[in-house]
């Protein structure tokens, strides 16, 4: 669930207001993004992917808020991770999109683990 907007990173660009599929954010009186409807957050992480200033922290727990503050979010060392390893914006060219190897990964798992004796019994 969305936990916090890191205020000294947020530029007030409003991209998160635009892309959040659950309309969680509003523009605060200080001109920065603010979390207006935390309970509506779907934990899809799309806001983080689109935030070019890495100012958003969504916690793994989608069921309830965890009370993460700005310091804890910073200290996690994970701000911007999704965008970076997706190779978006300034990371273009540094982290190729390897999504397409998924098929071969499944093949490897199949070979490595092999089907067991009662493979089709229940299905």
């Amino acid at each position: 669930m969305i936990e916090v907007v890191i205020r000294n990173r947020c530029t007030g660009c409003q991209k998160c207001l635009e892309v959040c599929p659950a309309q969680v954010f509003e523009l605060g009186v200080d001109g920065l993004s603010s979390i207006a409807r935390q309970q509506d957050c779907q934990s899809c992480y799309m806001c983080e992917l689109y935030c070019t200033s890495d100012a958003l922290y969504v916690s793994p727990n989608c069921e309830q808020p965890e009370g993460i503050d700005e310091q804890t979010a910073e200290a996690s060392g994970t701000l911007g991770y999704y965008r970076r390893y997706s190779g978006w914006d300034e990371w273009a060219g540094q982290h190729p999109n390897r999504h397409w190897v998924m098929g071969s990964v499944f093949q490897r798992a199949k070979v490595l683990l092999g089907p067991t004796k009662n493979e089709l019994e229940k299905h």
Partner: protein
Amino acid sequence: MSIQTREAQERLVLHTDVLIIGGGMSGAWAAIAARQAGAEVILVDKGYCGTSGVTATAGPTHWWVAPEQREAAVDARAVPTLGLADKSWMHRILAETWQQLPTLAPWYDFARNEQGQPIYAALRGPEYMRALRQRMLASGVRILDHSPALELLVRADGSVGGARGWQIRQQREWLIRSAGVILATGGCAFKSHLLGSGNNTGDGLLMAAEVDADLSGMEFSNAYCVAQGQTTMTRAMIYAFATYYDASGREIAPVREADPSVRTFDLATALLEGPVYCSLHRVPEDIRRQLAEISPNVPLLFNRARLDPYQQRFEVSLRAEGTIRGTGGLRIINEFCQTLVAGLYAIGDTATRELVAGANTGGGAVNAAWALSSGVWAGQALAQQALSQGRRLHETADGAGQVGLGSQTAAKNSGLSARLVAQVRDEMLPFDKNFFRTEVGLNQSLDRLETAWQEARQQLTGQGAEQVKAREAAALIASARWCYRSALARPESRGLHYRQDIPDSSEAYQYRLNTGGLDQLWVRPEPAAGVPA
């Protein structure tokens, strides 16, 4: 986009040739195809077209087979459909996908193999939807984000001629007249926290049923997907290597096949007993290193939870997928994906996928090929209809919504929507109700859902954003009832549909089940045309 918090404004009234409701991959492909056929197109989405829905957050691999291998591929893929699919439709989606996907190259950076050939089949969700959005905008599609549809507009002759909805950020109503409507609102995941499915509440199914469209395959609505505990992260590739344990450390759900979904039965059984833990120690080193560049959101969540999944055991759960990666949806009556109602089309997860996936999940390749192809066919067909018959704006078209559209602003109503949603979740998410089905259990659930439906019928109202929630609640209840009513009418186990009280399949039930109705539900069998090898 700047937000506007001022008082409710005058409503937005537009007209167009083709109106598409829902902007996941199927709606986007429909929009592109309709524009190419020369029609004017408006696409509305409840969230943001590009991030909302399960396409955006997943990474669909499309069924992708070269022409000379198709006969064999279809024969093989027909086996798990258990007699309910139709091979000619399977061939159609293979051919359409093969033709269309490469046309996305200017917008999507396809990787290349060692021979320098592009690899088309597997696209990562956010990049896929970003590409489709850019392509739509470049071709002149008008996109209205944060603009959920609330109800269809129906003409005197019963045909669909537009829709009405709400613009959440502008806080105003929208009303769009069109030659017809394509429903692309996705499947219904019953608010299960399946990644990306929060807006997929069955709205399209309800809107269509209100104008007397029917559904098919709704009993196949109980796929589940493994995820790190308490998270939405159902991108499950890495779990192909998983080892699972119960609380005492005993290994459970031993691997039968690499496809993680095959282990659902054992995992669900164990989860009914207590917590289940996972170890990923068998993941090969090189795959660990690549994971961030394959599915970056997966290690993101491990890191946030301060978890080393390759060394530490961690709790996992199963997220219900409802009709997503099940096969149920609106029944279509012709090769253009028209529903029973003139001017109304259903595509992607909103439509039944029984024609191509039968009784088993179409996830993993077939569903994406279906979403793309059904979108293209419906987009082309409605464009042609619009260009030949016009928008018929001189005729009246009235709102057809029947539940949750009263406009009183009683404060208790927001509470009512939330309570009804919680009730539906209670019936549709637990394994002992939806995965291990029994006649007794299904009847009990249907009784409770009936009470919820009556309450929704009589009391669910709201204005603006509250009305959107009220409609979601109504759609969730309606969808749940069609699922369980169909499940009751199939006294056997077949594919996804597992009846604990009748674990075997029976030749006698090798037909599809159609269903429909709002207050009075009905179910009736329909012979399946295609018989697999």
